[in-house]
């Protein structure tokens, strides 16, 4: 009788453990206790970030996108959801990026001389040799980074409040939470931008954008895992696979222009130099698409645009409005385009100024 009871108890415990394990796995990784760090002023933190020398590290970055972008089958990476990428750098310009996309992967390796881009989907390597552009520009802009940082802080403070709002644990590292919030006079969709800065390396570990009226960030980019220190040198080498096709970016681009609907739209938008209206958070970028470009927009692209925009009209004319949580784009039927991290009313008020 006893033995049976013991066995039964063990079996029950097994079931319960399994169930508990399932719920544990399902729970989002807890943020953990925020670390206690010495106080630091916002200004000096920003300065330290700007002046910090990037070191070698490898890690996984996760993009949590809740921007409210439509899920377009052609560009899955833009859809809401989580995407992760792995990144390695030796701190001296050598870089490796692995961007998984479902079962395929794009790998970008910069070995210091050449940038290799490999896509498993089409078994193709794009090889682009670095142009010989020695660091001459350094001489020109030889302002010391600390001064530059101070300048940026001053500029930013014109439109925003910069504060250090406690600490956080990101990818198991202690970090300060640096918060930029637009001044109340700014007519923007964005409530605040939180940047978690590694307490030791002074390197941003996570950036979150919060919008008005939402408790959850609209978008977060941050490390989920990071190991700081020298990385395996082999990671920064790339040998094209034996049977892969190797092309150059120029050839690739020419090909892409013909094919992709986005490319057509992009070309249309690049018609004229963009104009900036306003300052700070509520600045709006405007442009005019040449009339012929407007008609040249490929049908697929037109279809895409129609699918995800709302028809609007006002004293300024009529057009299509595309809204996300962090930005709004207004395309007038006559080719004027304005966009900004602002509510639609600001765009209606601004579009008249587009030349």
């Amino acid at each position: 009788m006893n033995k049976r009871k013991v066995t039964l108890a063990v079996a029950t415990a097994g079931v319960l453990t399994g169930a508990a394990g399932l719920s544990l796995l399902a729970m989002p990784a807890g943020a953990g206790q925020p670390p206690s760090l010495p106080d630091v002023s916002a200004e000096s933190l920003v300065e330290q970030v700007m002046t910090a020398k990037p070191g070698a590290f490898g890690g996984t970055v996760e993009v949590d996108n809740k921007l409210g972008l439509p899920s377009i089958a052609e560009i899955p990476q833009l859809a809401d959801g989580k995407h992760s990428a792995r990144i390695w750098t030796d701190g001296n310009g050598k870089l490796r990026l692995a961007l998984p996309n479902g079962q395929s992967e794009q790998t970008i390796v910069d070995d210091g001389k050449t940038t290799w881009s490999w896509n498993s989907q089409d078994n193709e390597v794009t090889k682009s040799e670095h142009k010989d552009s020695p660091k001459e520009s350094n001489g020109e802009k030889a302002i010391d980074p600390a001064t530059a940082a101070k300048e940026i802080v001053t500029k930013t403070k014109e439109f925003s409040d910069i504060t250090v709002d406690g600490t956080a644990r990101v990818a198991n590292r202690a970090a300060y939470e640096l918060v930029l919030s637009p001044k109340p006079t700014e007519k923007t969709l964005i409530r605040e931008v939180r940047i978690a800065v590694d307490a030791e390396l002074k390197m941003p570990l996570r950036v979150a954008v919060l919008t008005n009226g939402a408790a959850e960030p609209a978008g977060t980019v941050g490390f989920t895992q990071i190991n700081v220190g020298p990385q395996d040198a082999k990671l920064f080498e790339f040998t094209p696979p034996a049977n892969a096709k190797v092309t150059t970016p120029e050839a690739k681009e020419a090909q892409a222009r013909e094919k992709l609907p986005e490319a057509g739209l992009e070309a249309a938008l690049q018609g004229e130099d963009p104009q900036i209206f306003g300052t700070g958070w509520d600045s709006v970028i405007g442009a005019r698409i040449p009339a012929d470009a407007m008609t040249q927009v490929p049908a697929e692209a037109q279809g895409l645009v129609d699918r995800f925009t709302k028809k609007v009209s006002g004293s300024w004319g009529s057009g299509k409005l595309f809204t996300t949580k962090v930005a709004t784009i207004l395309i007038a039927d006559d080719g004027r385009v304005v966009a900004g991290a602002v509510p639609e009313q600001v765009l209606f008020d601004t579009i008249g100024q587009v030349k």
Partner: protein
Amino acid sequence: MTTSTSAPVTAPAKQAVAARTRGLRKEYGSTVAVDRVDLELPEGAVLGMLGPNGSGKTTTIRMLLGLVRPTQGEIELLGRPLPDGAEQALPHVGALVEGPGFHPFLSGRENLIRCAAFEPLLEKRKIKQAVEDALERVGLAQAAHRRYRGYSLGMKQRLGLAAALLVPRKLVVLDEPTNGLDPAGTREIRRIIADLHDRGTTVLVSSHLLSEVEATCTHVAVLHRGTVVAQGELTELLQAGGSALQVVTPDVETALGALRQAKISARPLGEGLRVELAGTSAPQVIETLVKAGVGVHEATRWKTGLEELFARLTEAEEAERGMSAVDTLDGGPR
């Protein structure tokens, strides 16, 4: 002799009992399959378990083997309490319960080898020999290589028996072993049981075939509606079942009168009387009759057969209850 279901007051020494149950009860949902079963299986005995369909024979056997957990009651098997002692007791028990169970895609021999692999008492190197011996013993050696799928009912039954006899056992439990066997097979079972008995193995065999039980068993337990209505040694039971004298006489009235005076119970039957021999003897009855001037044409000793005993135990009660058939239906499988 024990015809009651109450626990025996003078329990025999523990060693002498191969299996014993106390107040066994099993419910399946609202159906009571077995209730208040106090069974005793003396060591070395061949106990025949009798009972009509659905009387609880198989259920009792299953509980004895630890296959089914009793709702109430205690079981002792080869000196060990069940179900905790099952692992110690069961290796010494061979069983064939509710028909043989084997894999159709394996041959008879392969099936036995698989059974043998799980016999704790069988050493690995002896498996082959044990399997061949068992096959030989049940007369399946010729068909051992054939798939079980193609076996006839009797061959299947024999293979089941072979599995029960793979290892020398202290107790062999056979649930309706003669099911589907031809007369020769039935005789062989009888022979095997006798053989086991000779070697001192205790045997529990349930059967519908009364003649079978009468021929092979030393002890009998009769189940009816889930309870034991009689159990004990076969000879004792039969004697106690009472013998009678059948007397053929033309002078029934006078004879009845004379016997009543002599305080001997009798009743008219056919062309004469049936006289109960309880508390008297045949010569005494005849003497009484002759003295009274009754012409006795013929007097036959009426010995109770198992069949009659069985009928009396299981049907008399039925008649008393009247609506019993409905009860039985209610208690059917769900």
